[in-house]
């Protein structure tokens, strides 16, 4: 095929959501295959690998993020129904949840407080800008909630989305090892810790360890969404950070 025609095909494809939707799925499938081949090694986190691969492709083709997102938004949209779907595994753990509700509630409030205060305080001590501090405050909670809170606080919602994904990857990479190393073996405790710290990405990792850990991680993520929405604006005011 002559180069001119190939160029026309590129012009057509790059204007349609099909291309970047397909490339997103292919990049993830490749990343997930690598992760599986490495025996579910958390260091080869599939989100991190897929994101790195996609950024290389976008930079190499000179494609702006906005163009990419026109295709990728269909995947992004599924975060909503996937959150609703967490009710199913949660229902299956209802017996344990009934016994554990008080420890879960206390752990979630402690976790949300530690997550927000430690991130803001450390960034402030190391000279991070106020916008960065405010964007960091809701980083442990699922993306749509975190972005809404960042906006209210005076942070940058799109920066928060990136920090949320990074926190998710960090928790998924370190969580199971750190908790085992500290002698925490109960799936319910491990799951709540993953969900409160690393929202959906931690929950995805937890489901790969066991269905019970995944269900409790989903619960931790949902409860911390409530607790963060209620507590974090107040905690940030307490620290005296304002945008």
């Amino acid at each position, binding site marked *: 095929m002559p180069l001119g025609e190939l160029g026309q095909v590129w012009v057509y494809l790059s204007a349609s959501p099909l291309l970047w939707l397909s490339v997103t799925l292919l*990049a993830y499938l490749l990343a997930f295959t690598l992760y599986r081949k490495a025996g579910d090694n958390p260091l080869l986190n599939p989100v991190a690998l897929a*994101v790195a691969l996609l950024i290389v492709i976008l930079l190499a083709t000179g494609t702006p993020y906005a163009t990419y997102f026109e295709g990728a938004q269909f995947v992004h949209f599924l975060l909503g129904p996937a959150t609703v779907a*967490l009710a199913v595994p949660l229902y299956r753990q209802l017996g344990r949840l009934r016994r554990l509700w*008080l*420890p879960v509630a206390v752990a979630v409030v402690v976790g949300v407080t530690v997550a927000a205060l430690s991130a803001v305080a450390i960034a402030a001590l190391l000279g991070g800008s106020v916008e960065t501090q405010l964007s960091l405050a809701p980083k442990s909670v699922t993306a749509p909630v975190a972005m809404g809170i960042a906006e209210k606080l005076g942070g940058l919602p*799109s*920066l928060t989305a*990136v920090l949320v994904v990074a926190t998710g990857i*960090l928790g998924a990479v*370190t969580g199971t090892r750190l908790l085992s190393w500290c002698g925490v073996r109960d799936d319910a405790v491990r799951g709540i810790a993953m969900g409160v710290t690393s929202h959906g990405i931690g929950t995805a990792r937890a489901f790969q360890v066991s269905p019970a850990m995944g269900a409790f991680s989903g619960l931790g993520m949902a409860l911390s969404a409530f607790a963060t929405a209620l507590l974090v604006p107040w905690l940030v005011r307490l620290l005296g950070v304002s945008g």
Partner: protein
Amino acid sequence: MLAGITLLLCYQLVGEVLVAALGLPLPGPVLGMLLLLVTLVLRRSTSARVEGPAEGLLGHLSLLFVPAGVGVMVHAQRLGGEWLPILVALVASTLLTLLAVALTMRLMVRLMRIEEGDDAAG
């Protein structure tokens, strides 16, 4: 398959509408999840119709975060300028939060002497 997906979307829709109408401080999908959980508790069972799509979506939950993650390229400049506070805050805060949650919950379980058995049979 279709019925299950429609159900999940409708619960999300009801969640979004209620959040907007009542000015609640939480996202629509989270309220949708709670409403679906209440429905399942009242029905005393899940159905295969909703289980299929739910497992399909949750089986590759990490895929759904990829588009937001790629957004890191938009913030390259800020991340380059403030890499140290951001990196240290993210890593330290993530490890501290994991430990704070796990140790608090374990302490509470021991204090309350809750019998822990894995009854994930249902």
